[in-house]
């Protein structure tokens, strides 16, 4: 399909509107918590609406482009919204909106809310910037901004565990970020500053060693964020330490931002042809496959609920990288769809985990017995998302696994099918016992049964959870409706493999 460049003000507005939210959050909070909730909520809703409003145009073949800043005659910061970016951007803003609404209830009795909301909104803006970045430099700027500014959210609780997790996080992320920077500089040295283009801005005429160095710099750099297995160390510590709404976006879209970066690199910096020639993708696929299985095995042996979910995130992001590494249109579609589907499924699971912590004091899997009697709506949402995670039709997890599976067969490597299904089976092993215990195991004490009534959380926490969970169903049942992830993912993947 032919794309037409359209100049539009929507992308920069969508990126910078949340920054406005970060600024007005503090004075609004002085007025009242209610004012802040409504103010930030409406800003976030407008942002989400803007990102969604971009989708019809993108589906029609338009590419929105805006130049932000000219640093030197050859270095530009500019935003460019293609199908890939539009999909990720919409996912980010919608999940953020849900998490923000949830925060209003969840964070009510926490400390330092001004700081929390300011950084929460900032990170939304920067993450959208990552989604809409038009060239490597813009991407790098936003990527580093959101990676580093996430730190205050990770350590928000300020417990020793949170501080330790934050230190770990920042060390990992800084090392990854430096490698990305190295890659960007190297790319600039080889190819000059160029807009992301399908087919890549590097070409086979360049020094092979340099290309390999650039590739691994990027993969290791983004791999830290995308939690590829030897680089995943920060994920299982950061998630349990962070507040639940932030865990949800951290797991849902921030880790995915690493995978998103890998996609930009693979398809629009190197290009499919060049990578096939370099012969590095089988290695990446191997790493991703190992990530899927190893993280899932580790998840089985975790007792802390959020830690288990964090390992599950690592495993699921392995699917995305695997889908990219296979270099097939179907597999890429599956990987892209999985980013969105996983965002809402894992988002729901973390929001539920937060509710369980807040309302029932349940931190560990071993304490789940009888939770469904106390919090029926929460556990229903949890169960639905857990089933989705396993890939049960007609939930959204099935859609991504289906296209990934077809993609694996498309590139004729049926052995990865075992990884795909093995990971899903392990997901069943680490998620279903939780659901089972919540519904069918008797609560540990009679007292716990007595407080059954009224354990369910307030609407501001419950509604976003239920909506996220419902999205799991909708994205599955109506998967191929134009405008929903599949159409965009398909369009993007078709573009990459034209």
């Amino acid at each position, binding site marked *: 399909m032919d794309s037409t460049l359209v100049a539009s003000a929507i992308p920069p507005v969508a990126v910078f509107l949340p920054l406005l939210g970060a600024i007005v959050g503090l004075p609004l909070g002085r007025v009242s918590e209610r004012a802040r909730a409504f103010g930030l909520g409406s800003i976030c809703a407008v942002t989400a609406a803007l990102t969604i409003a971009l989708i019809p145009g993108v589906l029609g073949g338009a590419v929105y482009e805006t130049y932000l800043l000219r640093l030197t005659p050859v270095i530009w910061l500019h935003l460019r919204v293609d199908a890939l970016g539009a999909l990720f951007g919409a996912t980010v803003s919608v999940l953020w909106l849900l998490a923000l609404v949830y925060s209003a209830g969840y964070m009510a009795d926490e400390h330092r809310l001004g700081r929390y909301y300011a950084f929460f909104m900032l990170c939304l803006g920067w993450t959208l910037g990552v989604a809409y970045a038009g060239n490597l430099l813009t991407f790098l700027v936003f990527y580093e901004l959101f990676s580093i500014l996430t730190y205050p959210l990770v350590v928000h609780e300020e417990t020793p565990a949170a501080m330790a997790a934050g230190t770990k996080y920042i060390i990992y992320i800084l090392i990854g970020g430096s490698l990305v920077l190295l890659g960007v500089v190297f790319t600039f040295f080889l190819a000059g500053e160029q807009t992301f283009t399908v087919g890549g801005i590097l070409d086979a005429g360049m020094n092979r060693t340099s290309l390999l160095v650039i590739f691994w710099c990027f993969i290791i750099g983004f791999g830290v964020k995308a939690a590829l297995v030897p680089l995943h*160390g920060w994920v299982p510590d950061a998630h349990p330490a962070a507040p639940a709404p932030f865990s949800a976006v951290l797991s849902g879209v921030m880790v995915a931002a690493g995978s998103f970066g890998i996609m930009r690199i693979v398809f629009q910096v190197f290009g499919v042809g060049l990578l096939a020639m370099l012969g590095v993708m089988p290695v990446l696929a191997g790493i991703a496959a190992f990530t899927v299985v*190893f993280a899932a*095995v*580790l998840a*089985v*042996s*975790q007792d802390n609920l959020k830690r288990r979910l964090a390992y599950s995130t690592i495993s699921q992001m392995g699917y995305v990288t695997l889908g990219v590494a296979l270099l097939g249109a179907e597999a890429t579609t599956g990987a892209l769809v999985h980013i969105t589907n996983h965002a809402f499924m894992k988002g729901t699971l973390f929001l539920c985990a937060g509710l369980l912590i807040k309302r029932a004091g349940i931190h560990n899997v071993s304490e789940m017995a009888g939770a469904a009697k106390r919090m029926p709506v929460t556990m229903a949402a949890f169960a639905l998302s857990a*089933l989705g995670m*396993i*890939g*049960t*039709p*007609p939930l959204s997890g*099935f*859609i991504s*696994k*289906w296209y990934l*599976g*077809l993609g*694996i*067969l498309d590139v*004729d490597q*049926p052995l990865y*099918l*075992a990884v795909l*299904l093995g990971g*899903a*089976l392990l997901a*069943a*092993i680490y998620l*279903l016992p939780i659901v*089972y215990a919540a519904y*069918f195991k008797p609560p540990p004490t009679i007292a716990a049964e007595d407080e059954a009534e009224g354990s369910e959380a307030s609407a501001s926490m419950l509604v976003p959870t239920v909506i996220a969970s419902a999205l799991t169903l909708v994205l*599955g*049942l*109506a*998967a*191929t409706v134009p405008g929903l992830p599949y159409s965009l993912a398909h369009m993007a993947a078709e573009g990459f493999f034209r």
Partner: protein
Amino acid sequence: MPEAAHIAYHPLPALLVLWPLVCALAVRPLGRWREDVRNGFVLFATGVTLLGAAALIPLLAAEHKVTADLPALIGRLHFVVDPYGMLFALFTTFVWFCATLHSLDYMQHEQHRDRFHTTSLVVLAAMLGVVLAGDLVTLYLFFEMLGLVAFLFVIHTETDEAKRASIKYLWMTVLGGFALIGGIFLTYALGHTGAIGPIPLEGGTETLRWVTFGLLVLGFGVKAGMLPVHVWLPDAHPVAPSPASALLSGVMIKAGAYGIFRTVTALFRPEVVEDLSEELWHMTSDFGLVVLWIGIATMAVGVTMALGQHNAKRMLAYHSVSQMGFILVGIGAAGYLGSHGAMGVAGGLLHVVNHALFKGALFLGIGAVAFRTGELDMYKLGGLWRKMPWTFVFMLIAAAGITGVPLFNGFVSKCLLHHALVEAYELNHMVSLDIAEKIYILTCGGTAASFIKLIGFVFLGKPKQEYGPGVVDSPPRMLTALGLLSAAMLAIGIRPHLILKGVFAPGLHEWALHADLLDYFLKNYFLSPDDLMSAVTAFAIGGTIFVVGIRFGLFHLHAPKWFGVDYWYQAATRGFLTVCAYVGGWYERYLAAFSRTLRTLRLGYRSTYLRIERNWRRIVVTITTGAPGPRNQHFIQNAYIALERERQSTVRYAVSRAHEWLRARPDTGPERAWATIDAVRDIASYMAQRQLSQRMSVLAEMVRTGEIEAVRYRFRDVLAQVRLFQSAVAHTAIELAERRMTGEDVIRDISAEVNRISSEERFDRRLRKAAGVSRPSTVRVQRLSTHAREALPSSVALMDWRVRGLGRFERAARWSVEIVRLIVEVTTQERSTWLLSDRLDAESVIETRRHIQRYARDMSFNMAMILVLMLMLMLSIAIGTNR
């Protein structure tokens, strides 16, 4: 496909699936409102579904296939109804209707009735979705839904037994689901498009085809209760409420059979055209043979296990396994015989229908018995035919059906299956198939024995217990349900032509198989003497088994645990979880070790850095202020700070003791108390000051004599020892304070006391006693510097030399000696002469001064270095420009 022209689009199949789903939503609100309205509603819902399924008959009579689409999931859900699908839909809805009718009474004594009926309607929709699905994705969707939602049936009673069974059921279902989706994926690898139709023959390797086939059969087989993945079935079916058992055993396991049937006869077969050459069927033949043998094994094991059961429902569940074996034999024979497989298809599928009818009736009947008596153990019942005559009659009909009594439905399908087996044998005269035929007859005998036992123990004979007044015949709704099923059984048993000609003939024609075999069967074999004889043989064997079993107590034998596959499955599961936990533990340990290493590295780095810094400082200090002197001076300075601290602490201690002393005398007035405190402070200060100067002079003396090197590292210990004398000081101070306040001069007494304490303390002796070994290197350096100082001529001598007239060379030598002497003098100068007059009160001042000194020293050194470097730079530039 030749029939492509006859495909009609009609929304009925899609509506059939959606209708129960929509109705399921209404169950809970209605149940909360009024139970009887809800009961009526679910009956109405299943009744409408039954009518809808019946409406497929005229539709299919007019067209060969009916299709429908729902826009959902990946594009659309596709439904295709052919005669086989219609048959499944018909008996499913019929048995469902009967079970629902039965459940209305039965569920009265169960909990969670709304959940039961909701589950029932959702599972009905899923079941219809499976059998009406037009492609594999749709089939998988409904198959998973069926398996997962039926979990609620299994766990319904929420007893411990039900929970154990349901966990096993859940995991087997999930595993089966994964095998199934894996198989479906691989059909795409074979070049398939996902429709329920032949996979292209040329796609993929032989291995891949076998793997695909294996995964599909395994996936469907778990649900079908196929050996060796049947282990969940005998646990799960008995623990459900009886109507649910009837549905699980009667209908839902048929979803698995349906899947295997389609796998063998629709997916792995050559394309659907008339008169294919026989070679094209060879693959189907191989697969069919595998399924056939699985079937034989399943039926034999199932019936053997059934004979050993006490619990009536558990026995029926094992018979479900066994009867699924019959069905698999039919499907396998159909595959093996290829285009001539009509007998196998008809036998297998007719047995599916029959089994649904009689197993449904048996579970409902046993359910009625349990409903009235509350007892399921066959050995504890008996003589119920008097109490429950109608139930007895219907159970008898159902038992006649399952054992294959002529004129009952089981007889027809068992004969068809038997003929299919014989035909399979006659195709290639494989000896193994002859054996299979013998096992088949034996299994029929075992079935007969088993049901003689059931009817005999439960309904005939003497009652083993006193039945209460509540034990009367079943309620009318239960009897109606049983009656409907019995009527259907009799109808098929007496007039099989209807279903054989009406359903199977068009179905076989649809899939391009030879349908004339069915006509041949009806004309020549149906109720022929040969077939009657085989039925009689089976009953004879059954009777023998029963008599021998009862006589020798064989029915109470149990195989050891490890004999069953269940044991090994559980061992494997435990093993797998152990491995997961082991990997997790190993990883945690690895992480811990890693972070330990990191910490060690960091500490090592820190200590190395500190050591380098210290040495650097030492070098700087040595160069700027001379080597050994500062070493002792440093010590003296620190010692002074420590002793000064000790002095202050002594005074504080004395004052606090004075407070205590005053507190013990509450009659002292405040003014007097203040005066006392002041006096104590003054006296203690004086004494402590004396102590300090004495101790300092001891140290200074030791420095002078060089003894200090030995005590340097023990000084702190000694200081801790002498702290004990604080109390002596405090004691004296308080004692003398009284006298001092009266205006008396006490200074002599104070001095005496200080002297006494000092002689007791003997600071110098304590120090010498504590003296350890000094560091040899420092001693050597010190000795060396002393030697150097002594060896060099004194300045007076040098002056003397200068006076005398010397040559230029001698003057240079003298100058350099003087320089060396100066350097030695400077670097070895003793600067430790600590003047007590320099005493500073606040230690912070001392510290600050030390810091300033150190800083100034460092800075000046650095500045000097910079100056030197700059000079060198200028020099090099000058040299460079000159050239």
